[in-house]
């Protein structure tokens, strides 16, 4: 059970969050212009990276904000979290240090 660093509230127990799968998959600008295959790839296909990838989380029981995270799916360890709209940080080899502040930020 991990501590997840909400970009606003700080580190919180994993049960407080809900998962949103792969990040940075924008809704198509003009769905009507897409063929069935392209549309299916938006609706059903996502990466399934075994390693570091960008994914989405939502802090469901507190600030209720969506944010992104870089996480290594092999070890489950979070590298960093960042706000939607912020650029994807470079995968920092050193995972998020155990938080200095207490669990309630």
């Amino acid at each position, binding site marked *: *059970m*991990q501590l997840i660093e909400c970009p606003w509230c700080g580190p919180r127990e*994993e*049960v407080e969050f*809900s*998962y949103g*799968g792969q990040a940075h998959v924008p809704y198509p600008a003009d769905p009507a212009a897409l063929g*069935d*295959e392209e549309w*299916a*790839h938006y*609706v*059903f*296909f*996502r*990466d*399934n*990276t*075994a390693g570091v*990838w960008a*994914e989405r989380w939502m802090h469901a029981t507190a600030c209720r904000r969506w944010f992104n995270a870089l*996480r290594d*799916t*092999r*070890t*489950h360890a979070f590298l960093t979290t960042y706000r939607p709209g912020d650029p994807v940080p470079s995968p920092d080899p050193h995972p998020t240090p155990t938080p200095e502040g207490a669990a309630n930020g």
Partner: protein
Amino acid sequence: MSTAPATGVPEHPSFLWRNPDPKPSYDVVIVGGGGHGLATAHYLAKNHGITNVAVLEKGWLAGGNMARNTTLIRSNYLWDESAAIYEHSLKLWETLEEDLDYPILFSQRGVLNLAHTLQDVRDSVRRVGANVLNGVDAEWVDTAGVAELCPIVNTSPDIRYPVLGATYQPRAGIAKHDYVAWGLARRADEAGIDLIQDCEVLGFTTDGDRVTGVRTSRGDIACGTLALCAAGRTSTLTDELGFRVPLQSHPLQALVSELLEPVHPTVVMSNAVHVYVSQAHKGELVMGAGVDSYNGYGQRGSFHIVERQMAAAVELFPVFARAHVLRTWGGVVDVTPDASPIVGRTPYENVYLNCGWGTGGFKATPGVGWCLAHTVATGEPHPYNAPFTLDRFVSGRLVDEHGAAAVAH
């Protein structure tokens, strides 16, 4: 010779397989030495006489999900296509012990899927109705029926979500996973098929729309036909081959208790009070619940899933209060958007795909092995696996086993 190591569990044979080095080429290369890969090899030899086959396993044989699942076997799935392939698998389970000449402890003790809400009851009656019309043995039992089939279930009307009844499939049950795996492996090895362990696939060699060989940690191996049976790690292989599959790999946890005197006669599953549990032959309770929400290849999950499962277990089975969790672990299950598998063609002319089984992999083992062997041997999917195409996600003709779980009004 010494009797079986534990209380009355049959002994393994004194020879299982050869551990050969990989040959430079094979007619068929199967990537993944789990239950599905071994079953495919067995049926290639048994049904089609194809034995110039290699099964490549990156770790130890049947050490992935085959060693980590909760060993449930049933075919009472809702949609016609699912019922067909799972029922075909169940019929093969019923003769597998003879076919393999191996004690797989196949026990048809029945499975109860509990209903706790009025919508559960509607969904259950619907599923039972569809099962019967698809030739699957299924019946709806009321609360008293549940108490009769499994007396330790708490059928009191006062619990948080009272049991309103259940679907019951008498022919469903459990089997001993490693006995099944070793039985399949021994038969394949006997037929001359090479089971290659510690052999990780690192890449492929291709020629246009054909794959000509696999690059592995134990050298390059050429192949006539390639079958992918890597379950949770399928995406790593398809990424290498340059085509996408709609899979997400999630941790799926399971646990066992200490050995207990027989107390749980059947298999019980519940969605609303989320846990499923059976008691294995040796006496340990074997339990599981849902996947962890996030993607993960760590073969472990978050402990709050186990705690929630324990609250459900004690709620449904008060007598389990002082049973003890002896060991917890996790597998990596590949889930598709419609919770149904993909078994069939790929963009490569000589490559076939078997994945997306999510939490249903073990029960499908003989069935999918049989179908994939047919598909590899004939180049044509069998009617049982024909609906489970990769391109169903484009047409929208899903086989949506997810859909039913909704809260009404």
